C-alpha cells in the first residue's frame, strides 16, 4: 500500500513532442506528490509538486495532472528538449510523515 507505481520504464520522444509519465498509488493518505529529475551522477532535483486540493499545476513546460478519484498523477513535458533527457521519479508522502516513497523511475530520452 506504500508503493507508487510508475510507467513507462523508458520513453523516447522526438524534440518538440510531449512527454507523458504516469504514476499510480494506493495509499489515500498520501497528500504530497513531487516529481524529481535526475541526471546521471547527480542527486534527484525537485521539478514540480502538487497537493491533492488541485487537479493540475503548471510551471513553464512542466505540468502535473492529478486525478484523486483514480489515485493517479502524471507529468507532462511540453515541447520536450534534448536537455530534458534524464530519469524522472514520481514520489509521494503523507502529512506528518517524512519519508518520500518513490516510483521506479522513467528514463526519458529526447531525440534531436
Amino acid at each position, binding site marked *: 500500500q506504500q508503493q507508487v507505481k510508475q510507467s513507462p520504464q523508458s520513453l523516447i520522444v522526438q524534440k518538440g513532442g510531449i512527454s507523458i509519465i504516469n504514476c499510480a498509488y494506493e495509499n489515500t493518505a498520501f497528500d*504530497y506528490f*513531487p516529481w*524529481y529529475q535526475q541526471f546521471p*551522477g*547527480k*542527486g*534527484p*532535483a*525537485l521539478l514540480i*509538486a502538487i497537493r491533492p486540493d488541485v487537479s493540475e499545476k503548471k510551471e513553464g513546460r512542466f505540468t502535473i495532472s492529478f486525478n484523486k478519484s483514480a489515485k493517479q498523477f502524471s507529468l507532462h513535458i511540453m515541447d520536450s528538449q534534448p536537455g530534458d533527457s534524464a530519469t524522472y*521519479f514520481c*514520489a509521494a508522502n503523507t*502529512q*506528518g*510523515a*517524512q*519519508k*518520500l*516513497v*518513490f*516510483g*521506479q*523511475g522513467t528514463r526519458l530520452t529526447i531525440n534531436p
Partner: protein
Amino acid sequence: EPEVTQTPSHQVTQMGQEVILRCVPISNHLYFYWYRQILGQKVEFLVSFYNNEISEKSEIFDDQFSVERPDGSNFTLKIRSTKLEDSAMYFCASSVVRENEQFFGPGTRLTVL
C-alpha cells in the same frame, strides 16, 4: 544557491569494514534524511532526523546503520559492518520543515568489495 553537499563522492571498502558517509545540509534546514539507490532501482528512504534524534526509519535501517549530527553543520551515516548488498548510491537530503520539499545532495557511491 544553497545546496546539500556530500563527501566522499565515491567510497570503496571491503566487506565487514565500517564506513561513514558525510553530508552538509542546507544551513537553515531542520530535517535531514538519508536515502539510497541501488544501481538501476528506485530511490529508497532510510531514515529521517530532527532535533538530534531519529524521527522515522525504514526496515532497511537496521542495527548496522546509525546517524549522527556531530556538530552544527554535518550529518553522517555510519554503516558498522558493510555487506556486499550495501553497495549503492547514498543520498542525503534536507528540508526546512517536515512538509516542505526535500533537497537532495549529489550522492556518495558506496562500493563494497
